[in-house]
């Protein structure tokens, strides 16, 4: 499939030369070209968005920029001069800062200590006084409020991100790379972050913003470079482009971004949760008095930033986590403290949020994973003996029906991409013809094309009369698919809204605790 490459956009003010130019960057790993002659140029005072699917080569390119990898070919120019970046220290010295998606912070150190790390000669007194003062100045200037003496482990996710940004600003980074910075934030926090980023560009700093959320890209970017399979598949600006066009550049074919949910007939309640209390791993209540009901032919979405009781709720329903009090009923039958097997027998399917940990066994073949449920039943097994013929037949059919891209059904599952592993899990669970299902984070880490397919399958199940509890951090996903939305905060329902009754902003406020 060929994709037209958009011509170079006209710079908004031609007099400004780029602060960063990466030219012809190529990086090969055994068996794969991660970056193939990639060009990227960033002008001061602008946000340049790097867009691409997982594995398209974004992180490799940024690791090269930050000195973590050395390119096999290509040149890097910074402020007009050709530079070699051999290590992160070099990158920092040139004024390049990076906000990592997985925060590079030491949890047992304070904010100030994290900031001071690596700044001073190796053997000198670690005097936090001046660090603290300068840090306070910088955080006041950009409205990034943070206690310099707080330990990182005490901070919430949004605060940790502020610490990460402060680390780069303290070093007076002129070019900041932000790797999927919004992935862990609530919508109001995203708004705050964007305000800070705009302030940074107003100061003349350049930003590289990595994301796969198209609406964020359209909102924030001055320029967009799209990577696909290690190559630049397009270079454009939001003004000259559209979300659909960007998605096409990412995936290499046209993708539908809006879901036609259609109308489905709502039947009796299939899954009922009443006044449920569940404990989290730390022994405190993670779900506090939650009640909900999912009826046949309905998708109920659970929105919220992760860590607010979603995982515990899903595990409790499926019998994987003990319930403190309250009731859970499937098809009207009480299933509290039942085993997962018995819950399944009652008609519940489960798509867990960690597909490689709870959903599939990496060393098993695709066929074996597909048969994890139902392998004991005839015709696949009789008196404890597997009928491999029938199993293979069935699995080949499922792989075909659910469009799993795999060389054979005998391929070890871990060799598949995230999207295809998720399709294996979905094929297994959906084909069990359960009447109720708990679906957690179905498209996290999945490319747009696979996500589109998974969403279609979910809606097909809904149309067939399944009751679906959809748990997702992706607010777009929740809003597109759900008939009703429950916002979860610290284990409690903050409110319930019907489709079309609320905007992203309103749900975002509920997610951050404002009713």
């Amino acid at each position, binding site marked *: 499939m060929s994709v037209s490459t958009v011509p170079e956009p006209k710079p908004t003010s031609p007099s400004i030369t780029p602060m960063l130019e990466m030219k012809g960057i190529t990086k090969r790993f055994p068996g794969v070209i991660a970056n193939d002659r990639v060009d990227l140029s960033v002008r001061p005072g602008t946000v340049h968005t790097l867009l691409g699917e997982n594995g398209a080569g974004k992180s490799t390119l940024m690791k090269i920029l930050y000195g973590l990898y050395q390119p096999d070919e290509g040149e890097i120019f910074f402020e007009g001069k050709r530079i070699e970046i051999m290590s*992160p220290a070099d990158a*920092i010295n040139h004024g390049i800062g990076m906000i990592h998606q997985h925060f590079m912070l*030491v949890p047992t*150190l304070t904010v100030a200590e*994290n900031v001071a790390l690596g700044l001073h000669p190796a053997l000198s007194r670690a005097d936090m006084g001046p660090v603290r003062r300068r840090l306070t100045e910088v955080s006041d200037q950009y409205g990034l409020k943070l206690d310099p003496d707080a330990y990182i482990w005490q901070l919430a996710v949004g605060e940790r991100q502020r610490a990460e940004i402060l680390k780069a600003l303290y070093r007076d980074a002129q070019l900041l790379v932000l790797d999927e910075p919004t992935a862990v934030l609530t919508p109001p926090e995203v708004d705050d972050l964007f305000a800070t980023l705009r302030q940074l560009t107003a100061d003349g700093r350049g930003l590289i913003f990595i994301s796969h959320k198209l609406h964020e890209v359209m909102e924030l970017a001055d320029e967009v470079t799209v990577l696909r399979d290690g190559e630049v598949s397009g270079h454009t600006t939001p003004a000259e482009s559209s979300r659909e066009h960007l998605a096409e550049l990412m995936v290499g074919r046209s993708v539908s971004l809006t879901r036609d949910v259609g109308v489905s007939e709502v039947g009796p309640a299939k899954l009922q949760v009443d006044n449920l209390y569940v404990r989290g791993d730390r022994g405190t209540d993670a779900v506090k008095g939650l009640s909900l009901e999912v009826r046949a032919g309905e998708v109920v979405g659970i929105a919220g930033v992760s860590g607010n009781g979603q995982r515990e709720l899903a595990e409790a329903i499926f019998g994987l986590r003990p319930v403190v009090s309250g009731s859970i009923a499937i098809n009207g039958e009480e299933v509290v403290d039942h085993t997962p097997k018995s819950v399944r027998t009652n008609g519940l399917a489960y798509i867990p949020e960690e597909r490689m940990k709870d959903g599939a066994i990496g060393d098993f073949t695709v066929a074996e994973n597909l048969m994890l449920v139902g392998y004991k039943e005839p015709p696949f097994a009789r008196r404890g003996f597997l009928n491999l013929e029938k199993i293979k037949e069935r699995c080949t059919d499922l792989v075909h029906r659910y469009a799993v891209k795999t060389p054979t059904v005998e391929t070890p599952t871990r060799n598949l991409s995230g999207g295809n592993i998720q399709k294996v899990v979905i094929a297994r669970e959906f084909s069990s013809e359960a009447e109720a299902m708990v679906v957690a984070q179905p498209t996290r880490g999945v490319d747009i094309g696979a996500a589109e397919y998974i969403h279609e399958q979910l809606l097909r199940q809904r149309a067939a009369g399944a009751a679906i509890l959809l748990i997702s951090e992706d607010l777009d996903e929740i809003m597109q698919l759900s008939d009703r939305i429950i916002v979860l905060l610290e284990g409690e329902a903050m409110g319930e809204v019907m489709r079309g009754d609320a905007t992203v902003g309103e749900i975002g406020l509920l997610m951050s605790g404002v009713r």
Partner: protein
Amino acid sequence: MGDFFTVSALVVTFASGIRLATPFLLASLGETLGQRSGVLNLGVEGVMLLGAFGAYYTVLKAGSQPLALLVAIAIGIVMGLLYAVVTLVMQAEQGISGIGVFLFGLGFTDLAFQKWVGTPIPIARLEPWPIPGLSDIPVIGEVLFQHNPLVYGAFLLVPIMTYLISRTTFGLNVRAVGETPEAADTLGVSVNGTRLVTIIVANVLASLAGAVVALEVGNFQQNLTAGRGFIAIALVYFGAWRPFGAMVGSLLFGFVLALVNQWGALGIISGSASSLAAMAPAVLTIVVLVFISNRVGQPAALTRPFDRSN
């Protein structure tokens, strides 16, 4: 039968406890620093034996105790470099490599002793250096200030090590590297460089700990350090990866050993009772192992080699 609760008996016991604590302390301080940077060295015992033999042999042949300490330091540096190559460059599994170091130390010192010395020939023991003025204080002076210089040195290292870890930029690097090496790396802190330094310091202190044993005893025997290096590692966990904690643990072990010893010497316990009492260190070790299961304060990256491409 003597009476334990006399001032003189208590003074002797506490002074003995401090002497017995010294090798534990030196070795566990070094290991504390090493582990704070994320490096486990189970070979402490082996390095102690090498240091002990090196110091013994130097005094035997050259008659100089200061030279013996320099030799022990040199042995520590060499063993540190060796361990750094194995764990940082070759990224070998640290538990196994440490046991290799132990086996090497045990076997090599035994062989070298038999080949080069033959029979345990006594050497001059370390003389106490009473600190003028302070050592004249009744009781306290006798307990604290009538030791050999290595005892003072080991205890002085406690505040020095504490300051180094918590108040210097090097200590900040050590803590970061032991906790989240990736974060330290992205800020331009050399992970392996920092670990190289801590490994060398840890090995030098282990080697000196062995030298203390040999020079205090004034002789050498196969397996001279008798498992003290392993107890020192347990004390790092017991001390929650803090120099002061390591000191508390070392003193606890030293005092229990001295107490049981003293009771035996005074005839307070004898026969099977003394056998039972002599198990106290073993019981204490088990208590320490229970502490280990808590692992409060354990560096998150302990035993994890750093590799940027991961």
